[in-house]
């Protein structure tokens, strides 16, 4: 969208927003619309000149913004917000889908469902069923985690480390819950490692609030990379059946040739790659280092001896 058009959109949205927030500070208005105070002042000055044909004092939009606070006295016919556009509606409908995957309260679930029906009525009929967010995995402890996030309190968790096949306990301060690829992740401040750590929520086996509050100074962004063992580069060949695995480890791939289907990944946890190769048996073949290939084959032989 070009600049004058983006500005027109903002001007049309400013008037009903101020009407519903009479007396709002210019600084807050600028923050709300993501522009500078100088730009908002220029917008208000421009709105002051707009109105209905004849353009006498009676037909102009009337507002006051002296002393840093804004009030609309006469919005003329721009008192209502513009209707939601296709992208905005889609985002809300899908956002409600997301909420519905995790809501446990039947009243809220029904509320979300009814709202989706109402929003879908605003979309062109054929596109109403064109977007969907579905997930059958309910996240355990999501409410406890989010409550702790809001109150900035700590949690004691027991966590399943699938690579090591062991359960550990940690004291964490939950910072952010997000979905990346097919995993729900929890970014935390970990008391044990005194650094940011990310945990897969599906592998949290217990979660109990404890009375330690997060100091304001702890950052909730820029997670620190996990330290640990030396980084190893593993080169392997894969086939179509392992494409999902390749897609899930995009950020670890350091080289890939999609034609010959050979990729290299950097890993700090050798157990993680060994188990993944086993899990994709027949679809991933380790080319280097050769000791890794031998280890996978050896585990497969031991597993076969169980039958």
């Amino acid at each position, binding site marked *: 969208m070009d600049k*004058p*058009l983006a500005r*027109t*959109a903002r001007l*049309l*949205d400013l008037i*009903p*927003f101020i009407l*519903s*927030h009479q007396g709002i500070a210019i600084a807050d208005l600028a923050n709300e619309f*993501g522009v500078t105070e100088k730009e908002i002042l220029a917008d208000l000055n*421009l709105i002051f000149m707009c*109105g209905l*044909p004849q353009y006498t004092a009676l037909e102009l939009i009337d507002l006051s913004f002296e002393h840093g606070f804004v009030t609309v006295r006469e919005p003329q*016919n*721009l008192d*209502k*917000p*513009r209707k939601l*556009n296709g*992208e*905005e*509606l*889609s*985002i809300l409908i899908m*956002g409600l889908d*997301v*909420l519905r995957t*995790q809501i446990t309260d039947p009243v809220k679930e029904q*509320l*979300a469902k009814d709202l989706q029906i109402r929003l879908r009525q*605003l979309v062109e009929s054929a*596109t109403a069923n064109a*977007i*969907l967010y*579905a997930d059958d*995995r309910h996240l355990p402890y999501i409410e406890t985690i989010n409550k702790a996030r809001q109150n900035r309190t700590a949690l004691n968790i027991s966590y*399943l480390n*699938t690579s090591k*096949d*062991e359960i550990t306990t940690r004291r964490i301060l939950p910072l952010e*819950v997000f*979905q990346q690829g*097919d995993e729900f992740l929890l970014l935390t401040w970990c008391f044990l490692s005194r650094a940011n750590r990310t945990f897969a929520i599906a592998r949290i086996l217990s979660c109990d609030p404890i009375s330690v509050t997060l100091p304001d100074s702890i950052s909730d962004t820029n997670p620190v990379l996990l330290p640990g063992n030396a980084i190893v580069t593993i080169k392997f060949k894969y086939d*179509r059946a392992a*494409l999902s695995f390749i*897609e899930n480890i*995009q950020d670890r791939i350091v080289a890939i040739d*999609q034609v010959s289907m050979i990729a290299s990944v950097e890993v700090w946890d050798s157990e993680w790659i060994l*188990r993944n190769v086993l*899990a994709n048996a*027949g679809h991933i073949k380790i080319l280097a280092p050769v000791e890794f290939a*031998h280890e996978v*084959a*050896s585990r*497969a032989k031991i*597993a*076969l*001896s169980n*039958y």
Partner: protein
Amino acid sequence: MPIEKAERLINLTMALLAAQRYIKKSQIFAIVAGYSGNAEAMERMFERDKDDLRNLGIVIEVGGLDPFFDDEPGYRIKQTEYALSLENLTPAELSLLAVAAKTWQDATFSNSAQSALRKLRSLGIENDATNYVDAPFHIKISNSNFSLLWSATIAAQSLVFEYPNQSNQLEEREIQPYGIAAWRGQWYLVGRDVAKDAIRVFKVARIAPECKVRGKVGAFKLPIDFDISRHLVMLQDVPQTPVILQIRKERCHGLRQKSKKIKHDVEWDEIQFSENNRSQTIQEILWYGPDVVVISPEDLKIAVIASLREMAKNG
């Protein structure tokens, strides 16, 4: 001093919104502040302005002033087409919508989410902030094509991209995107493959990076009965199969979490669970290597043994 474009567009919007009947172009030039210059210049200005307002989603109606005469068309904006109408939205509903918008904190859609929220908050309804504070989680999308796929789907504009075929060779496809869906965190584009004249499903992560739009906005219409969920095989009901495994004591914690223990001895526990995704179950079993043995069903056991044999050969 010439009037700024934004000011002219606001004045035009207000004039067309106020119109009880269609207003002719000549009247618009005469009464709306901002139109100046010769007739051709004003014509061009007006054509651009109409396009701009339509790009903002404002519906400008065009109609004749007199149904019996083929005269110059007139223009107006209906208040019902312009304004957001969510009658009787309650504070609880508004709060829920605010939380729904917050799931999109990812930069891809944060602007649209913000603007949707702002429009809702302009309805003058008190937010019930005590009930809902934040979304249960935020969606982060790192795929570079996603924004384009989404906007082309909403704008009904064709897409051209390369996608791996059965032999993993990239093949150019022209698709009319009908919808976008997420299932367990993976995104799928559903659309009509123009060459094959059939609806196909594409995994967004597999679409090659240089995806482009082709042709005009609004170039096609969706089938009236289109429902994306019918095209996603993973959403269809699949019968559950009981699985019985032996797992080594104190091991295979991931499998233990979803199973019930039915027997045990000194070295092994026997567990049972139900599955409806065979390839995922095989992967989970293989993950634990020598610490798990399949007891039943027989076809699962055969599949796991075959995979292990394949793997054992590669040492």
